């Protein structure tokens, strides 16, 4: 279902993934708890990361990811497989996040999410891809830039944030995002451009203030 899996080189992998998912869904529909557990294992990390960036709070994200799976389980009899399982799960999660943000907007604003610290002030656990083993200075710069980007994402409106996260971070296609949000592809593209422009503005401001050496390293 994701952009990288539907590339020509990975088409067989994508088909396998979809058929495995379809079988899991059928079993879960028949109230096979082990199958549903497998579905949770497949999507827990992706959904948790997505929701955490959407709501900016680990406790709320944990609650919302639980709610997403709960609703998915209860809604499985109605899942007809026209959309992929992932698209369907992201749709549930997105709706929950938007509802959550609406409710939160009516309450007192909470402290914004910090990219590097979890709720206890401890460094958050990161899963860096194996090929990313930069030298310490580069790693520090990457982290700094990452913090700038995370903070800028936090300032986006829910509409823009959803599209940016689904496309650039979760790597869904325009069509899939259109299905998740129920909007035309043109709207997806337009929202993505606006979102990227806002993040780019924050990054440009960070680079403008940074020493030339940092700018050169970041540009590498």
């Amino acid at each position: 279902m994701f952009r990288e899996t539907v590339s020509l080189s990975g088409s067989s992998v994508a088909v396998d993934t979809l058929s495995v998912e379809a079988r899991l869904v059928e079993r879960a529909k028949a109230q096979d708890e082990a199958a549903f557990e497998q579905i949770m294992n497949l999507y827990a990390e992706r959904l948790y990361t997505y929701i955490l960036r959407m709501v900016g709070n680990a406790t709320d994200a944990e609650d919302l990811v639980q709610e997403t799976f709960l609703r998915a389980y209860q809604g499985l009899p109605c899942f007809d497989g026209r959309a992929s399982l992932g698209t369907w799960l992201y749709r549930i999660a997105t709706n929950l996040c938007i509802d959550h943000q609406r409710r939160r907007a009516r309450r007192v604003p909470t402290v914004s999410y910090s990219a590097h610290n979890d709720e206890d002030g401890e460094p958050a656990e990161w899963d860096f891809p194996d090929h990313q083993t930069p030298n310490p200075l580069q790693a520090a710069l990457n982290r700094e830039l990452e913090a700038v980007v995370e903070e800028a994402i936090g300032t986006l409106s829910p509409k823009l944030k959803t599209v940016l996260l689904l496309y650039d971070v979760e790597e869904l296609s325009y069509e899939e995002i259109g299905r998740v949000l129920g909007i035309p592809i043109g709207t997806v593209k337009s929202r993505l451009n606006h979102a990227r422009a806002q993040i780019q503005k924050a990054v440009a401001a960070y680079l403008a203030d940074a020493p030339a050496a940092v700018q050169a390293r970041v540009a590498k």
Partner: protein
Amino acid sequence: MRCKRFERQMWAYLEGQLADAQAFEAHVGACSRCQRQLAAAQATYRALHALPRHRAPTTLSAQVRRRLAEAPARPRLDWARVGRRVALAPVLGLLIALAWWGWQTTHAPVNTAAEDPTEALVELHEQLEVADWSPSPTPSYFISTGYTR
């Protein structure tokens, strides 16, 4: 190429989806403003795609299982119940029809003309008399029909 066009093509270029990148790259080489913009966009693009995933809490599936156990059981299609409802539908329809008929007979305005056919004909005749049949009947119409108003 102008800076506006550069801006429109910038993300497509970064995604490797720009078919002809020569004009784009030539412009970047010549315009320092666009160079800065591209550097920021490049850093943004790279950072967005390198954002790490967060590990879901280890207790997640246990929590979901607990909440599922607490939640009311998933409603399954109870055919006996559906059958009873289907069987009840015509009875319910009949009751609604009877109630409507009863209301009509007690509350509807009494129309005596409907009960007496002669009265009904008189009423119809009167209505025809009052009706303005033609906006402007021609004089020949009155002559040939002998109609007078």
